[in-house]
């Protein structure tokens, strides 16, 4: 399943790149893009575990950039 989420307070481009790398490493994530310019996260992940995966995504993003909020 592919979904797109809006982000707020994603303030640095390098953090966006780091978030993207971290999300891609998660189990069950097929592909992910964090766009600093559109302030959007696009994620393609397993349907069955999608909600669990999103929880992990939020957790890793908080680690990289605590100010950034993902609008689920």
């Amino acid at each position, binding site marked *: 399943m592919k979904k797109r989420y809006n982000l707020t307070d994603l303030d640095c*481009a*390098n953090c966006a790149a780091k978030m993207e790398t971290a999300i891609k490493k998660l189990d069950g994530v097929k592909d992910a893009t964090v*766009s600093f310019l559109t302030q959007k996260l696009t994620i393609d992940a397993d349907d069955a575990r999608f909600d669990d995966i999103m929880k992990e995504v939020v957790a890793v993003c908080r680690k990289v950039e605590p100010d950034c909020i993902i609008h689920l």
Partner: protein
Amino acid sequence: MRNLSKKQKKMLWRILLAAALLIAIKLLPAEGWMAALCYLVPYAVIGWDVLWRAVRNIVHGQVFDENFLMALATVGAFGTGEYAEAVFVMLFYQVGELFQDYAVGKSRQSIAALMDIRPDYANIEQDGELVQVDPEEVAVGTVIVVKPGERIPLDGRVVAGSSALDTAALTGESVPRDVLPGDAVISGCVNQTGLLRIQVTKPCSESTVSKILDLVENASEKKSASEHFITRFARYYTPCVVLAAALLFAVPSVLLALLNPASLPSFLAGTVWSNWLHRALIFLVISCPCALVISVPLSFFGGIGGASKCGILVKGSNFLEALAQTETVVFDKTGTLTRGTFSVTAVHPESGYTQEQLLEYAALAEHYSNHPISLSLKAACRTDPDASRLSDVEEIAGHGIQAKVDGHPVAVGNSRLMERQKVSWLPCELPGTIVHVTIDGFYAGHIVISDLPKDDAKAAIADLKASGVKKTVMLTGDAEAVAKTVAAELGVDEFHAELLPADKVAWTETLLAARSARGKLAFVGDGINDAPVLTRADIGIAMGAMGSDAAIEAADIVLMDDKPSKIATAMRVSRKTLRIVKQNIWFALGVKAAVLVLGAFGAATMWEAVFADVGVAFLAILNATRCLHVEEFR
């Protein structure tokens, strides 16, 4: 001031306050630890959030981030007694960040404004009154009302009213398009003159506007080679510079401690360990790759935005990048280089038939076909067709049509059909598509149909040549003679005629094999029947795609109107974008490298270092926003 966000305003006040405090302290006669204490006040005002984030990120295991590096550098400067410098550096850093933030926000806004074609409401009539509803809620088949000055919210067909439509937001074209009842209209156009009633043909999620917005928003996901390079570079750059900083401090300090002060090597002579610490701190300030990480994607984003201003939709940064290296451009003929509307220009019957008879038989046989040639035959035939006279219609792909008219077998098609029927046919001296007709198995004559080149086709080919395309090729299913005339008229280098759809793919493969390793091949078609070639080419360009889903699906670049000259425009936008990307990469790397070298020899201050970090990022962003300006190409 007014355009700043709340967060930015707060930062501006902090900067002003810290600057004022700094000046005040400069005037105080404080010395030693008193001075340190005084400078701590503006430092806290300006830098508390950086310090806080640095600590928090270390706890989270994020070591080499900007905040940490800035905190380390300024705390280090404080530690070596450079109080004023520490505050200045932090102040300068925050000013730079604010500028950066503002510039990025600004360009993001202008790109968003460009994409502001999403309609907010649709008018529907309820009990004789107009009601505004969300376009998402309008069902297919509903009749909506669009007043002059309003944007058409959904794709549909005009059922009543006539008007002129402004399609500029979609095509970049400034001449309005006239619509009458029966015409298909697409969402995103602005109704200029008359009231229109439109029957909706597609739900909101499938409307042209939704498709375009989706496409452009997704474009930044397909990254270019330059963006991949920068991401990889950034991953190694910071750790390397930090390591270099550590060595720059550790090695000389150890040597200074171990060696005899009287016999020091020249680069150590006259230095103490704190000098080396200071140089190492300068390294840390420069170690953030932000200028590149922001400006390169921003340039591509701007380039894609700029292209869409001209009515050119690019599906990804990678395609925009590839476009600049285009070496071969392959065109489909009909509908791409030529207008695609055929008209009968001559009728040459054999003895025994009149012109009218020949046309009538041909038009009847082609009655059920929607091929452009059939349409022109039907348009030229004056008598009303009576389909009941027609039976046993058989369409032979790439050849023509066989049918019975009033019980007489009739065959209408090209020379291949004649050969298949083993009928001798006569060539025609006129250029155009020749439609041969046999009645009862005997040759009855031919009809000449021609398709005129588009007005800008010749200029488009010349333009491509001028912008560095080495070879232009035209592929067509049409007859050799027609193709030759058109190719000569337009100045196309190479043409291949009488091709079946599969042959077009084969020729594209051959041309793909012939291009140089770095060169790219672009195929331009109108999206009808050429989806396989569009996908096979390095860059598939579909034109005249307003409302054609298949073309938008298959192509990498979509020209919203049907002007071949837009291809050269797209190439220019692409070249400009890449030029700006290169400028930014070399400028940022150059300045950083220079300051690193100067810093290692003790010739750079922290001022230069902060400039190499935030100053360069700011300038690179300003440069990147130039990608959005495409007025010169329109």
